[in-house]
């Protein structure tokens, strides 16, 4: 394609729909040029999965596939919130322990105080929002660097968890609804229904968009490409639901175990909401703007402080959701909930997925893809049966490998000058 203008009287925006062929050619040029979106993360994921499946065939079982989702859920949820903070070029080191605090609140309300589960969930989410507001105010209004504020939060929340746990006790979470979140599955039929709804919704959005743009004479992707996308989603979702609806009980006589884990639709809904907010609302647009060039955003009349506060609220709220899932999965909350590697894994997930630590670049989907990479590594390593020392080393090396697939494919972008 040339740089020549299409019409002399205006830029090339208002033109006819390009052909499928040129679209595919364009895409291929972009891929060769290194502009490849989610491709590297997906590629890294595929490489990891292949390697683990070869080394440990049980990695490929339906049961393990289902486990993957629940194992990675908490970190992924926290990472999804972190994406918002990272988009501004800020960081939230306290997200891990914030999720711990919220989980501790949940456990206290439901187990110690004996309120019903929805009160506990509301209390936990509210706690997350309050935490986020405090962090955001300190960063935006007093102007302390977010690294320092959230490092202080990291310490303080650790203490708060201990205090809520009465200096170190574990509190069990036995409420059946709460336990179900990370431990139960949807009925197989409901899984299919949800998948169908998702595909239908996606199709509707895509086709409406196509019609809308075409009606105004704006450039659109060729219809065939739009249809291919919809078909692609349908195939992926269909396969996943099929896999998850396979029987995975060790002993069907004792009990049956099949269906989509409940966390999956939770993550999916939050992913859709987050993506919608970031890409289809002016609030999301403003987040990118502030992250890309804070001064330009300020000059454009964006209330930068409000945006900065709000992303911390979102992050801590998502951390609360992550904490609830973690508490559900462990059936209990302990002073380590949200501690040890949770934070680094969550930030790592976002970054591996392609979110930049310098702001302005990233998507919620990155967190999910990166979270999947982290979960696959953890899951696969758990099957290898290494001693702890070796396990740490191999985990580090594997993480590096997954990331270098990404880095090497992006290097082409630099080489072709589109930095």
């Amino acid at each position, binding site marked *: 394609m040339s740089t020549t203008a299409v019409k002399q009287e*205006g830029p*090339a925006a208002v033109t006819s729909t390009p052909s499928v062929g040129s679209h595919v050619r364009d895409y291929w040029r972009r891929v060769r040029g290194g502009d490849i979106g989610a491709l590297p993360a997906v590629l890294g994921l595929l490489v990891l999965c292949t390697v683990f499946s070869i080394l440990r065939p049980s990695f490929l079982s339906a049961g393990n596939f289902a486990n993957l989702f629940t194992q990675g859920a908490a970190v992924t949820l926290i990472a999804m919130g972190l994406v918002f903070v990272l988009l501004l070029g800020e960081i939230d080191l306290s997200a891990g322990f914030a999720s711990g605090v919220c989980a501790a609140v949940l456990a206290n309300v439901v187990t110690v105080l004996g309120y019903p589960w929805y009160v506990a969930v509301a209390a936990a989410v509210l706690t997350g929002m309050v935490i986020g507001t405090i962090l955001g105010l300190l960063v935006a209004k007093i102007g302390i660097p977010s690294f320092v504020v959230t490092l202080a939060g990291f310490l303080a929340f650790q203490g708060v968890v201990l205090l809520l746990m009465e200096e170190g006790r574990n509190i069990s979470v036995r409420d059946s609804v709460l336990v179900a979140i990370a431990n139960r599955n949807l009925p197989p039929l409901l899984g299919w229904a949800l998948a169908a709804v998702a595909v239908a919704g996606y199709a509707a959005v895509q086709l409406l968009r196509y019609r809308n743009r075409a009606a105004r004479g704006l450039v659109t992707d060729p219809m065939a490409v739009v249809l291919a996308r919809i078909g692609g989603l349908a195939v992926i979702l269909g396969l996943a639901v099929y896999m998850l609806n396979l029987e995975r009980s060790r002993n069907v006589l004792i009990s049956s175990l099949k269906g989509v884990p409940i966390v999956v639709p939770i993550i999916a809904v939050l992913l859709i909401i987050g993506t919608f907010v970031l890409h289809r609302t002016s609030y999301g*647009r403003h987040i990118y*703007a502030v*992250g*890309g060039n804070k001064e330009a955003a300020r000059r454009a009349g964006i209330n930068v402080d409000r945006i900065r506060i709000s992303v911390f609220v979102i992050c801590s709220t998502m951390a609360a959701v992550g904490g609830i899932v973690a508490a559900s999965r462990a059936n209990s909350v302990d002073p380590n909930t949200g501690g040890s590697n949770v934070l680094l894994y969550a930030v790592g997930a976002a970054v591996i997925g392609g979110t930049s630590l310098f702001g302005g670049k990233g998507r919620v989907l990155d967190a999910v893809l990166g979270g999947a990479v982290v979960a696959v590594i953890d899951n696969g390593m758990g099957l290898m049966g290494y001693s702890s020392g070796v396990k740490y080393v191999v985990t580090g090396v594997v993480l590096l490998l997954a990331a270098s697939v990404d880095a090497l494919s992006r290097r082409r972008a630099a080489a072709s000058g589109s930095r």
Partner: protein
Amino acid sequence: MSATPLLELRGIDKSFGPVQVLRDVAFAAYPGEVTALVGDNGAGKSTLVKCISGIYPTDAGQFVFDGRPVNIHSPRDAAALGIEVVYQDLALCDNLDIVQNMFLGREKRSGIVLDEPTMEQMAADTLAGLSVRTVKSLRQLVSSLSGGQRQTVAIAKAVLWNSKLVILDEPTAALGVAQTAQVLELVRRLADNGLAVVLISHNMNDVFAVSDRIAALYLGQMVAQVKTTDITHAQVVELITAGRSGGLGLTGEPATNGNGAAPAGSTTGGVS
């Protein structure tokens, strides 16, 4: 002076730490007129613009807008008054595309959803009027634009809105011949539509071609604000480089006190 000014500044002082950049500056912009703000490099033109648009707080001075005294603390305040600015340092978000930048902070929506098709169409129409022929796609990131293309986007962004005062800080610096002509024509058209326009430029031909008034800054002091018809090309250049020309400009000896305090007495001069 003929009409009442839309914007009037009086006694503006501005220092950066120990460096005083603006000293007791008075300035006025009239509706329906193009006021050219000229001055040497580092005279303080951009600083004055940023004070007007609320990016820098001033140390002293009053703003009068549309007859009422106002305070402008942030670009939001300026935008609320109807002031649009094209900054010399452009201030575009490199990670956003052309349309996104043009509508930044004032996105068109239907419901809570962004109305992308409308914005894209409006952006295309505005850019078409500015002779941009080499932009491949409106969905290109501004980081991949050429210098002139970026400048055009910044200009298009500012003129997209119904504002009362448009300030353009060296808008044609990076533009080609045809584009420059288009922008000057646009500037004239805006003024003819009743807006107040402030144009900063180092190109005297452009200044004389398009402006109704000329204001000259010299080392942070406003040395003259006169009708364009009352002054010659050579006089303006003299004002810019020496701070005075004939009866215009600084009355005392030029300020050369390197490290001392501000000179005593106001030296703002000029008649109109």
